[in-house]
């Protein structure tokens, strides 16, 4: 009996999807030639596909519900596979050693192309961790993070073009200027909450991009800046392969450094203030935390990382133009943070690697890759809204002693 109702349900779902996709999947119009192509076979595929997928969907849904109510999710997550690996030394140490080995030998085993895309992925790890400070820890939804990234990239591009400054000189300058922009953005949005903040940061990101696009005298407009110098190694110019390997280790170093800093920040006074701000800003203020300063430091520190990566981005691609800094880029970085699990360092790192490497390896399906990408984002959120690795809330629990 049970079975029959299940089939009926799936049948209805399949009918619904056949209806839903009818005009767009079945009919293809060519208005220029007044041609109409009917593709009935697509309807059949949709019908059969959705029939079986709906079983899978319901099965997964039931599994998710059995897994515990979302309100208890945090507690449940303590028994999670990833968490277990993280906490248990027997697994974490060999894993760490394996990780170090892979990381060290990667550029020598793999070809230049693999190393190159790995650099891109590592850049997004740092960007994700930087945005994680703002969104994950301080709970400020920032949709214009890419603006700071652009500031870093253009700092290096312009200083290199006009004054021939080297990568290492500009790296701290880029970081500082981005920090400065972070504070500038921070001021007007101090009073804003939640989604209002989101749209203002989005607007800020767009304004920066539009200025770069329109103000030719300053930024050379949409044609961009070309032939930016790659990073040098104590003044030695390297071949392409060497410089990519060099950049790779530079990025590994930066990732380790970032993880270290973010980790320390989390446990610091300011880190706790951010978390308090995220949880309840009124209560946070009542506890005597300076809200203004806390918010500004979050913006400024988040922007600093974006600035650093911006400089590296310019050095890596050797060409920048405003088209690289669109809203979609911000959305991508935000997706990394949320998919990874807000506030979780390992999660963000994994999410960055997956989200950046996935489209590269999906090149074989080049047409479908963005479709798959979007679907994965939705499915991931539906079945694991807390992200790949949920951040465990610091809880202090009174445990009654069993022996007593």
């Amino acid at each position, binding site marked *: 009996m049970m079975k029959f109702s299940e089939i009926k349900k799936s049948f209805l779902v399949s009918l619904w999807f056949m209806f839903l996709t009818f005009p767009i999947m079945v009919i293809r119009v060519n*208005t*220029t030639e007044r041609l109409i192509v009917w593709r009935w076979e697509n309807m059949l595929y949709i019908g059969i596909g959705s029939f079986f997928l709906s079983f899978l969907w319901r099965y997964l849904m039931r599994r998710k519900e059995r897994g515990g109510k979302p309100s208890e999710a945090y507690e449940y997550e303590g028994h999670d596979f990833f968490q*277990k*690996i993280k906490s248990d030394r027997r*697994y974490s140490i*060999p*894993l760490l050693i*394996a990780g170090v080995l*892979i990381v060290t030998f*990667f550029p020598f*085993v*793999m*070809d*230049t*192309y*693999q190393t*190159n*895309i790995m650099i*891109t992925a590592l850049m997004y790890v740092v960007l994700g961790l930087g945005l994680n400070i703002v969104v994950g820890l301080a709970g400020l939804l920032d949709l214009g993070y890419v603006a700071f990234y652009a500031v870093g990239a253009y700092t290096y591009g312009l200083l290199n073009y006009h004054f021939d400054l080297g990568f290492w000189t500009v790296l701290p300058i880029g970081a500082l200027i981005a920090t400065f922009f972070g504070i500038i953005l921070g001021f007007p949005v101090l009073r804003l909450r939640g989604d209002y903040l989101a749209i203002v940061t989005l607007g800020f990101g767009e304004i920066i991009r539009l200025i770069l*696009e*329109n103000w*030719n005298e300053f930024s050379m*407009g*949409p*044609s*961009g800046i*070309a*032939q930016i110098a790659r990073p040098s190694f104590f003044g030695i110019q390297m*071949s*392409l392969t060497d410089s*990519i390997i060099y950049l790779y280790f530079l990025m590994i170093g930066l990732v380790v450094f970032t993880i270290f800093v973010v980790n320390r920040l989390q446990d610091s006074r300011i880190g706790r203030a951010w978390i308090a701000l995220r949880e309840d800003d009124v209560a946070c203020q009542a506890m005597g935390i300076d809200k203004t300063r806390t918010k500004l430091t979050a913006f400024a520190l988040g922007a600093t990382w974006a600035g650093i990566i911006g400089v590296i*981005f310019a050095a*890596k*691609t*050797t*060409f*920048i*133009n405003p*088209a*690289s800094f669109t809203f979609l880029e911000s959305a991508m970085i935000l997706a990394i943070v949320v998919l990874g699990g807000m506030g979780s360092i390992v999660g963000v790192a994994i999410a960055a690697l997956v989200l950046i490497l996935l489209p*590269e*390896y999906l*090149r074989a399906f*080049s*047409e479908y*890759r*963005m479709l798959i990408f979007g679907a994965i984002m939705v499915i991931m959120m539906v079945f694991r809204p807390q992200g790949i690795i949920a951040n465990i809330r610091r809880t202090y629990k009174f445990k009654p002693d069993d022996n007593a």
Partner: protein
Amino acid sequence: MKKNIMKKMLATSIASCFLLLMLTGVSTASDTIKVGIAGAHSGDLASYGLPIVKAARLVVEEVNAKGGILGKKVEVIAEDDVCKPEVATNTATKLVTQGVTVVVGHVCSGATKAALDIYKDAKIVVMSASATNPDLTQSGKYPNFFRTIASDDAQAKLEVDFTLNTLKAKKIAVLHDKGDYGKGLAEYAKGFVEKSGKAEVVFFEGVTPGAVDYSAVVKKIKKSGADAVIFGGYHPEASKIVSQMRKDKMKTFFISGDGVKDDTFIKVAGKYAEGVYATGPKDTSANPMDIAARAAYKKAYGEDVGVFSINGYAATQALLNAIQKAGSTSYDAIVKALQTDLVDTPLGKIKFDERGDGVGVGFSVYQVKDGKYVELKN
């Protein structure tokens, strides 16, 4: 028991990670001549990139049917860069790693600039069928770059000359789409008009691509009293602006570049496209090779050639011919052959100057007449 499973899972996951990395890293070494084709093969600019790939494949098939070159078969490796500079560097590295001898591409100027440094390091000759940014050849920074299309400044010069001398416009509005290609073209046009002293630029502005409508900008053009509009950009914006102008009963001349000289423009703008001028690669449809190429394309893919197909066809032919003539796949020999040997292509007999621009490749002015672009003979 449970822990054992965990251990196994861990071991397998690590092992499979390694395996995956190894598999993806396998490089192929064989005795074919590899031609890389890079450009936008997916996304919204795919309509510019894919026709080039298709044309190049045709040329390669033809060459292989005749036994290849230097006794080797030619192999095509197409890689997508979605016209983004940051992706283009990855694409370029991938092609270099796969051991390509020459590259046809990239499609967009920005992506090309980002990728060229990588090819330069690897000593690979690159020939684009569509990247028109003047800097690519004129700056002298990219010795490994060639192209079978003329540059934007030549195009802008032609547009301005035509507007001033043939249309006798006195007040010119210059409009662009804020993009890499469009704004570059518009700036050259503005410069040429100002230098000529024959007319004034009454208006120089960029419109936002994809905006809901352009009514405000059109009203502003109307108020400025311009008698000609020179537009730098692609056809979607052009058709919106032209339709809006014509619906407002403005008879202002509309002159644009090769981004608009696309049949899609006429299809989308419909009756409003009538009378629009656009510069584009010289009409070579009388050339027998061109006719043959078009026919082969239609036969192989069941559709008409795309915007830059013929240029892509010529680029692939020129590169393969240069390898043949050079007798080797060495960088210097190929460059020398490209610069000295005339090659017969659908674009006519071409060779390349020391900067990399095609000699004998030019633009002419077209006008939409009865739903078709017709070349205007001077």
